């Protein structure tokens, strides 16, 4: 086959593909530029609460599928690499991995613009990358280096990217949902015509502040979409042991809800597009993404004491998001198995390069301890007794 790949050296998401050498040899257009529409059905139909479910039929194209595939492979590889780095004690503290749930991040991103806001919990590495974060920023932040997205001062649970409206990155379960409704409030206040997706897990779904925020959002007609990433376990507690009603999409009561197969990136995309349209007109809506995480809750949790290994391998075999897209690409003859494997190899190298670069990056300067405590404004300084000696400037 005459297709060859040209990977850019910087850890960017999309690879540049050279045009085929001769169209006489290959009748297939390069996958990453082909936008002829392809119609696919989602794995399962949507289940709706207080609204009409969107259609099962999703429009996509080869370019989008290629992007999905590559992005998810990057995320998967990144999370696995983070696992190894954690075990090598280069990443410390808490590290919550997202592998298995990649479809939610890529599907959502495909339905949104950068004007829409996303806010999520501590399982934020992949969502950050989906919003445009680079691998170097991820690994540097995880290892506490200067080049990290939060200058090394946030850590795994505090990734933010203001210029693409990614609001983090929050350690306290459920606390990001009122923040997310506040973002939606600001969008309505400033007439942005954009929406906010506030993501939380099945564990956080039992937090009171969620219902408070949903109530206020519904009262004030805010363009807020609450997305429950239901991976069925709140750390070690299965959903049926934590929630009397695990139908999280119905828990909004007066707010409409939609249950989505979170392992199917196209279903996620369809649902998010539907939700965005709904929220701009009618106020808040809840999306429940039925998804699964392969790792434990965090690196300190083996993930096998509260579920069987068979369950994990079962899901991996039947519902893995990357495999689904791979099968879709192959069955529609958009690429060959070898090409996809080449993409995986290339991504692996990209991730390794980013890690190497991050390892070289220096740790933050000592002065960074006191910077960004306050915003520069009225100059909060902590003086010595006679004001001649500045003890610390809380910049």
């Amino acid at each position: 086959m005459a297709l060859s790949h040209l990977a850019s050296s910087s850890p960017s998401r999309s690879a540049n593909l050279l045009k085929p050498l001769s169209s006489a040899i290959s009748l297939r257009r390069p996958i990453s530029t082909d936008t002829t529409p392809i119609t696919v059905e989602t794995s399962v139909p949507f289940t709706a609460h207080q609204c009409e479910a969107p259609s099962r039929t999703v429009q996509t194209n080869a370019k989008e599928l290629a992007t999905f595939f590559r992005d998810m492979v990057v995320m998967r590889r990144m999370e696995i690499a983070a696992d190894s780095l954690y075990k090598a004690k280069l990443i410390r503290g808490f590290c919550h991995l997202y592998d298995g749930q990649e479809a939610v991040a890529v599907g959502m991103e495909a339905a949104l613009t950068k004007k829409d806001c996303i806010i999520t919990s501590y399982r934020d590495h992949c969502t950050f990358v989906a919003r445009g974060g680079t691998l170097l920023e991820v690994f540097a932040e995880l290892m506490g280096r200067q080049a990290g997205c939060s200058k090394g001062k946030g850590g795994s649970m505090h990734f933010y990217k203001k210029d693409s409206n990614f609001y983090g990155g929050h350690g306290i379960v459920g606390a990001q949902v009122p923040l997310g409704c506040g973002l939606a409030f600001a969008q309505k206040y400033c007439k942005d015509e954009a929406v906010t997706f506030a993501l939380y897990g099945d564990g956080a779904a039992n937090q009171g502040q969620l219902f408070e925020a949903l109530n206020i959002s519904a009262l004030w007609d805010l363009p807020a979409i609450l997305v429950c990433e239901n991976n069925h376990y709140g750390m070690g507690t299965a959903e049926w042991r934590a929630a009397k009603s695990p139908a999280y999409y119905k828990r909004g009561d007066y707010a409409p809800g939609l249950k989505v197969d979170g392992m199917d990136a196209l279903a996620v995309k369809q649902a998010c597009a539907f939700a965005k349209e709904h929220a701009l007109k009618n106020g808040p809506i809840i999306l429940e993404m039925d998804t699964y995480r392969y790792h434990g809750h965090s690196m300190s949790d083996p993930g096998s004491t509260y579920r069987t290994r068979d369950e994990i391998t079962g899901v991996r075999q039947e519902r893995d998001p990357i495999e689904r897209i791979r099968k879709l690409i192959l069955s529609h003859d958009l690429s060959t198995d070898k090409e996809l494997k080449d993409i995986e190899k290339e991504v692996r190298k990209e991730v390794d390069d980013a890690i190497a670069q991050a390892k070289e990056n220096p740790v933050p300067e000592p002065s960074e301890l006191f910077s960004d405590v306050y915003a520069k404004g009225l100059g909060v300084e902590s003086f010595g007794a006679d004001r001649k000696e500045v003890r610390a400037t809380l910049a």
Partner: protein
Amino acid sequence: MAAIFQGVGAAATLSSSPSNSFVPKKFLTSPRRSFCVRKVPSSVVVRSDGSVNFDLNSKSRRAQQLVANAVATKADSSAASSSSNPGHELLLFEALREGLEEEMERDPCVCVMGEDVGHYGGSYKVTKDLAKKFGDLRVLDTPIAENSFTGMGIGAAMTGLRPVVEGMNMGFLLLAFNQISNNCGMLHYTSGGQFTIPIVIRGPGGVGRQLGAEHSQRLESYFQSIPGIQMVACSTPYNAKGLMKAAIRSENPVILFEHVLLYNLKERIPDEDYICNLEEAEMVRPGEHVTILTYSRMRYHVMQAAKTLVNKGYDPEVIDIRSLKPFDLYTIGNSVKKTHRVVIVEECMRTGGIGASLTAAITENFNDYLDAPIMCLSSQDVPTPYAGTLEEWTVVQPAQIVTAVEQLCQ
């Protein structure tokens, strides 16, 4: 545009340097007595060309007036100020409202959220008529859900809006402690400086008249450790308006502590636009013998005690610290260097209160200047009882302040 700053002998330029970093040379070298006189709330008018005028007349005489009218239910300085500085008279809650209204007019990003702030006009009337003027999207009635609406205010602030979140009583904000501590205080730091949180969280707190234990809390002692926030406490209509405006304009999250019993204080305030420096303490009464540090309602108990002390021949220096986080160690330090004795009078409980931190800060920084250990008078470490007599014994009373000063000055 000329701005009047509440100066403590410090003049500020309108450039970006902090306003308390520049002290004109003449104040440093002048003899102490006249320095003290100037330290009395003198209006410092800084014109846009950088030249500075000092208005010394009326306000300096207010110091003497305050001693006479120590329990200032109607702090009437109108006689002195009306001739040269007309201004207008209003109550403290009206001053807060004026400040809020002016800032809302000035900046469309300012909005107010809280329970009953809109149609009801605010439970203490601080937001009265604002909803009629600015509409329901700028003055928002929230359900009783402090955790979430404080979180929403912080989320909105992350995008650049300037919400003013009202806790109907400061004690209710305990339900929002997570949002205030982790999100409000820390997001600027954990995002590496990407987000600023220009939010103002305000509300009345402190011990009222038999409101019961849960409605008499002093949250400043719980919030003081949170890194990244600033805390100020207002005590007069003048500084209430000034601090409200400064807090709204600040890029940092500011918690403005008001007091339930001070809302009906009356004072004459200037007509012109002015703000009070958030990090500065206020010299209420200059003196020589002892430094009394206080804030909020206890200022009035102190002034009442000061009246007795003056009659007994003492000369207390009274400073309203106003800035609870960070402390204005400059003003406090200069005072300690002068008097060598410190009494702190606060409404917080003894354990872990503002007084405890202030005692530590002064001891750490000015130990050499102290002739005697610092006396910290605080409320008792008990839930505030309902019965009137018991409640009186919980908080510091003027008689106790007099006794403490007499003891200290032996």
